[in-house]
């Protein structure tokens, strides 16, 4: 199911959350909440960035970069955190390919969705290659008027904000005006620039009293579930006798996440939960589970009775104390310390940003021949999506 897409417009210490319904196209701002102080919702944001930013851009791994002066902050959109031990950090330290004039600060940034990011400063811009982390010094910085030849003069002199809307359009803002840029056609659409206040164009921003100028705008990364096959390739029960008697099944968990260009669905994650009862030789036995982030393991719960408020599902995890890798093991956590070295719990092509999840579960029993075991367990697979930094 496709979720409402969200963009954030920043100006000084205020911001507006802008929601776009992917089905109807309806655009809205909760006027009871926005404009709102950045510091009120972006609680991980360093103090110096709460009073205003220069630029913001998403990266194809679920991180979002905020720039202010000669500093930048890396925001983890998967859990809305910033590593306060590292950020704010000098642009010149983290963006070695930037020319000095851009390392001193930028005006706007936009992820073009094809592996390139454009950074703007004054009448100049640079093109950043994401895969190589390079800027071609033989070409950039380059005049905006050269590379964006159909930009009106006011925009060629500099842009305040730029955003890839994820639908083939990019918007460039300058003062109270904006351009609608056709990414595939490499051209400004006819009729632009227009004022943000043009009737019918950005009515929700106008209603919010937030019609520009902007520091920058970003279409926020998120993840939608494109497909999920859980369980896949189910083998209910197979008995084997070497090296010990084993009776168990196997199944795979497959999920595919998507996001609109230019983001990638790094926020999409798989989780697995269990509940039920176990017996050995007719005697009920308990099962010790390790939930993510909980110091003391928990006991698997049975199916609840009618009317219970708790569905009794608990996360299906292995405790670190005796796990083969010395860490808690769960399904689907992108930040798992053991990462893609756990071949039963993979994101491909990369754990941080891969759109596809492939898990493999092998529930079963091992023990002496002649033992009767009853495993009556429900597995629940669930996908989770991006954290959101502000109330809807």
């Amino acid at each position, binding site marked *: 199911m496709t979720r409402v897409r969200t963009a954030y417009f920043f100006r000084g210490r205020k911001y507006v959350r802008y929601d776009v319904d992917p089905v109807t196209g309806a655009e809205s701002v909760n006027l009871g909440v926005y404009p709102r102080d950045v510091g009120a919702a972006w609680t991980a944001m360093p103090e110096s960035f709460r009073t205003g930013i220069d630029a913001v851009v998403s990266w194809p791994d679920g991180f979002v970069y905020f720039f202010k002066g000669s500093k930048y902050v890396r925001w983890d959109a998967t859990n809305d955190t910033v590593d306060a031990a590292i950020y704010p950090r000098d642009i010149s330290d983290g963006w070695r390919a930037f020319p000095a004039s851009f390392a001193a600060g930028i005006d706007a940034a936009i992820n073009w969705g094809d592996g390139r990011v454009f950074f703007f400063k004054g009448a100049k811009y640079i093109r950043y290659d994401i895969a190589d982390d390079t800027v071609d010094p033989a070409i950039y910085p380059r005049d905006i008027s050269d590379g964006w030849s159909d930009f009106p003069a006011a925009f060629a002199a500099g842009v305040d904000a730029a955003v890839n809307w994820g639908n083939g359009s990019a918007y460039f803002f300058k003062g109270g005006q904006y351009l609608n840029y056709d990414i595939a056609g490499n051209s400004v659409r006819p009729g632009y620039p227009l004022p943000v206040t043009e009737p019918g164009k950005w009515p929700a921003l106008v209603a919010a009293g937030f019609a520009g100028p902007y520091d920058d705008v970003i279409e926020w990364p998120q993840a939608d579930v494109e497909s999920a096959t859980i369980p896949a390739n189910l083998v209910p029960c197979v008995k084997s006798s070497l*090296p*010990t008697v084993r009776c168990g099944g196997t199944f795979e968990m497959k999920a595919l996440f998507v996001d609109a260009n230019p983001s990638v669905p790094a926020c999409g994650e798989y989780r697995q939960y*269990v509940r039920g009862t176990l017996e050995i030789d007719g005697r009920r036995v308990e099962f010790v589970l390790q939930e993510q982030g909980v110091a003391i393991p928990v*006991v698997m719960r049975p199916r609840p009775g009618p009317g219970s408020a708790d569905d009794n599902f608990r996360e299906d995890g292995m405790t670190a104390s005796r796990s083969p890798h010395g860490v808690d093991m769960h399904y689907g956590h992108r930040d798992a310390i053991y990462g893609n070295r756990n071949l039963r719990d993979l994101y491909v092509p990369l754990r941080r940003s891969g759109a596809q999840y492939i898990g493999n579960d092998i529930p079963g029993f091992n023990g002496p021949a002649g033992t009767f075991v009853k495993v009556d367990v429900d597995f629940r697979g669930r996908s989770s999506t991006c954290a959101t930094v502000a109330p809807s």
Partner: protein
Amino acid sequence: MAIVPDSPQQAGEYWVLPSIEAASGGEVRMHVAIAVGDVADLSDVDVQVVVVAGGQSLAVARGPVGGLLPTIQLNGINAYAQYVFDNPGDPPPQTVQVTIRGGTTSFDVSGGIV
């Protein structure tokens, strides 16, 4: 109906949870669930359980069969040690002490059958 402590505890490197399944008819039936890292992690000789009832340590009537403990695997794996203790007069169990490879922990089970 069983006595199951609220939370597992660590006996050495192992998280363990004893559960008293029944305490009547002159015996206590119980098992210990042990979070392990491999199906061949623990054998019967690695686990010792002491149940105290009426101020006395109960005698083991039946314990795990020799060799590797049976295991059930979900994401994690639990090994199981199942016991029957003699409990003449059926005084209520008070504590269960679990020792695994030298690591020991005790559980208060005096809350009774719930």
